[in-house]
């Protein structure tokens, strides 16, 4: 019962966060929202009885890829006139 509620609410949050990630004007917001989608996805994997995948998503999807995005954002900000 509670698992179903958890699943539905987390899925709705993930969807709204994905929309934020795609539509937000600010790149920082966008990247953070994409990281949040990964984060929720990894809780959802756990509800789907896939702890291995959940761990991979936590370590790689929401950890390392957010880091790479911010490194790139930093490089871009420093090397140009970009706002």
């Amino acid at each position, binding site marked *: 019962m509670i698992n179903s509620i958890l699943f539905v609410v987390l899925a709705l949050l993930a969807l709204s966060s994905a929309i934020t990630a795609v539509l937000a004007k600010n790149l920082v917001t966008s990247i953070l929202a994409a990281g949040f989608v990964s984060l929720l996805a990894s809780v959802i994997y756990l509800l789907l009885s896939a*702890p291995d995948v959940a*761990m991979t998503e936590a370590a*790689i999807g929401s*950890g*390392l890829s957010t*880091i790479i995005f911010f*490194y*790139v954002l930093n490089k871009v900000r420093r090397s140009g006139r970009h706002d």
Partner: protein
Amino acid sequence: MIKKIFAFLLLIALAGVFLVVLQNYETPEELNLTAAYYAEHGAEEVGAANLVSAIVVTYRGLDTLGEVTILFLTASILSFFLKQREERGKRSVRASSELLRTASAVLVPFIFLLGAYVFINGHLSPGGGFQGGAIIASGLVLLLLTDPLRKVSSRLLARVESASGFIYVGLGIAGIFLAGGFLDSRVLPAGTFGTLLSAGLLPILYILIGLKVGTELSGLLTRFQEVQVPDGGDSPDLKKGENV
């Protein structure tokens, strides 16, 4: 504008396809044949408690080898694309807070230990080479974050990476002669099911994968981290540029 309408129509069509798929989707009640085979025989054939690890390392070990190779290629292409070049102007990098530096000095060994735990216990609990490697790479990133001037010894990384790759393939070939085929884990005795020393060669293979993935991801991340000259900052650590 015309582009947006076009994109919208495309998405509508895609959504229609998905809807049809979703309506015709029947949730399975039983495992399919392949999965049932793995569930029945995985424990006795491989001896790993974690069936996902058993599949990744043994049954589909060749795929894993290919995947590790793809990661290696990605890292190489990245190093080609993101050549370190001289910075045109010196820019100021704000030095990390003293607290963060201390905290990361305390924390990084623990992160490495956690990564090692994850890939050593890959056959018993969730996790394994990929996750452990990612955790170790994150530990390295924490070091780089607190001290942007620290140089990671790429030679050490490359050595660990190629050594673990060679041993991995070597053990895989050993499987052809000593057991059933390439990357067969029954080179070593199976051991007691559910303990650390079980599943034959699988833990060792997973440790090697972990080291290889960890070093590859580290190499990939350090490519994005550029080395620059600070013009200020109070960090006493900034001048040391040795390896980790």
